[in-house]
């Protein structure tokens, strides 16, 4: 029987007396790459955080492999955290830690038996893939925005998650770095990992997404397949115009 990896069922989210997300229902298919698009302030990032279980819906429920995230036991929650990762729009690196500590922390939590040498090897490998070449014993404040994004992306990949949530992860990166990260996501996609991302970049959406969900005013307004975008120029232009707002 088919079971989605993530399902939002009648999910709603309110903050400060404002309905951010309303009656949102959608099933994210395992192994697929889905883009959440729409105008700014429409609720894309909130949907992403709901799907990742980082915030709890005020109504409805979010399910991971058929199990409600808010009702998970601690062990189930830890398993979910191990199998998923989130890249934040503003990197969200821990300011009081060095880059090495930042990258080691998820490994220490989810792979407690891993030795320090193994952790270092994994970190070096992942940083080589992302293209970060600077010192590891510095703090995030000593990095540029683009470099912080690379480290945030490396942190999300360090535990080899099955499910990745990416919130505008290529914004403020130079072309070369953005290209490298897009290629890395492509590689993850080829390994049948589930990727759910938010982006305003039409090129990125067209290149990566297999399904596109348009969110306007907190509601799921349109679901489009990559084939439709590729074959329908009018639709592609409409999407490009819509996400540019």
């Amino acid at each position, binding site marked *: 029987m088919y079971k989605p990896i993530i399902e939002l069922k009648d999910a709603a989210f309110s903050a400060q007396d404002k309905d951010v997300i309303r009656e949102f229902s959608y099933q994210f298919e395992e192994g697929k790459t889905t883009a959440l698009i729409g105008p700014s302030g429409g609720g894309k990032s909130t949907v992403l*955080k709901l799907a*990742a279980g*980082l*915030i*709890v819906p005020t109504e409805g429920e979010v399910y991971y492999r058929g199990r409600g995230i*808010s*009702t998970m036991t*601690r062990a189930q*929650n*830890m398993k979910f*955290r*191990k199998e*998923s*990762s*989130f890249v*934040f*729009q*503003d*990197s*969200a*690196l*821990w*300011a*009081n830690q060095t880059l090495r500590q930042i990258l080691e*922390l*998820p490994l*220490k*939590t*989810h792979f407690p038996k891993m030795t320090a040498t193994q952790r270092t090897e994994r970190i070096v490998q992942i940083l080589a893939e992302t293209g970060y070449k600077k010192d590891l014993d510095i703090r995030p404040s000593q990095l540029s925005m683009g470099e912080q994004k690379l480290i945030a992306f490396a*942190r999300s990949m360090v535990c080899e998650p099955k499910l990745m949530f990416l919130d505008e992860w290529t914004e403020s990166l130079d072309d070369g770095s953005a290209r490298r990260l897009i290629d890395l996501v492509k590689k993850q996609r080829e390994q049948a990992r589930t990727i759910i991302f938010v982006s305003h970049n039409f090129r990125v959406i067209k290149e990566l997404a297999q399904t596109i969900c348009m969110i306007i005013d907190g509601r799921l307004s349109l679901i489009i397949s990559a084939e439709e975008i590729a074959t329908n120029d009018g639709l592609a232009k409409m999407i490009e115009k819509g996400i540019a707002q």
Partner: protein
Amino acid sequence: MKFKIRYADQIVGILAILAILILVVVIFLLGSKQRWFAKDYKYNSTFESATGLSVGMALQYKGFTIGKIKTIGLDDENLVEVSFTIFDTYYNRVKEGSVIELIINPIGLGNSFLFHPGNGSSLIPDGSFIPRADSPEGLALIDSGQVTIPKRDDTITNVIAQVNPLLTNINETLAQLNGAIKGTGKGPLADTMKNLSSTMSNVSDLTSSVNGAIDGTGRGPLAKSLNNVSDITTNVNDKLLVEINSEIASVQAITKNFEELSSKLKDPTGLVPKLIDPDGSMFKSIETSIKSVESTLSNVEDSSSILKGQVPQIAQLIQNLQVALLRGQDVLEALRNNPLLKNGVQDKVNPDSSGTNSRNIEF
């Protein structure tokens, strides 16, 4: 009479010392109760707004007060900086990955300042920053499994606040619905229900008629028509469709062959031309022949146009020849009858065949 208590000074001294000791003990006991002598660990965090925060507010963990807010102020980036302490008895809970959370009650029945201990192994040192659970850093800690936020059970007031208006609406709706069902109600819902009732009755009659017609027990034109249709369908299914299917299969095969052939022929580099004429010599030879035929036809066309112009002269010539032949016949007959010429006939001069004018002909 004068009384004198022996050791009065000593007794007073002892009582004074006892009082002081009791005072010290009481102060100590009070102090220990008020945590005057305990070491507290200081931490700090930032909030977007000071709403719901107050100095002295208790920091709670699983219902226990484990610390207090000491100071609240604005920092250089206009964020609200909160410094708080955690009691030494709970310091061992302040592990790597810990976050704090402020829950503001929507109807003002008391806010909660909560502590969520991290899953890390090492303790967070005194004076460190502990992020808010809803800050990006806090969310990153939650996402990486450093901390688990338990499901809150303090939303009862929130729910109650929403339940009352909801119940009122439900009551109103139920009243309308009951009235509509009983047929005593007024308004659009009741009217709709009445219409629906009569429609359902008609639909029920119609359904029974159709059912009768379908299972063959019905009467009337619909039942007869359906019976006829049934017979026709049986015939069509049994014979005609089989034949049609066979024909369609044949036609499809032919069409497919044609398609393949035409596509192969259409392609100048295709397999068929290559099989017939692998090096292209046949094609060239045919091309040369066609060109020759073309030039010959051109010559024929020219000749025929010339001949066309000469036709009247040729006709005249033939006529003259006929006349000449008749006269020659007469002459020969006369000669045969002439006794002077019995020895033979003189040699004739052959006329030039190229001459086309009858005037040049000699007899």
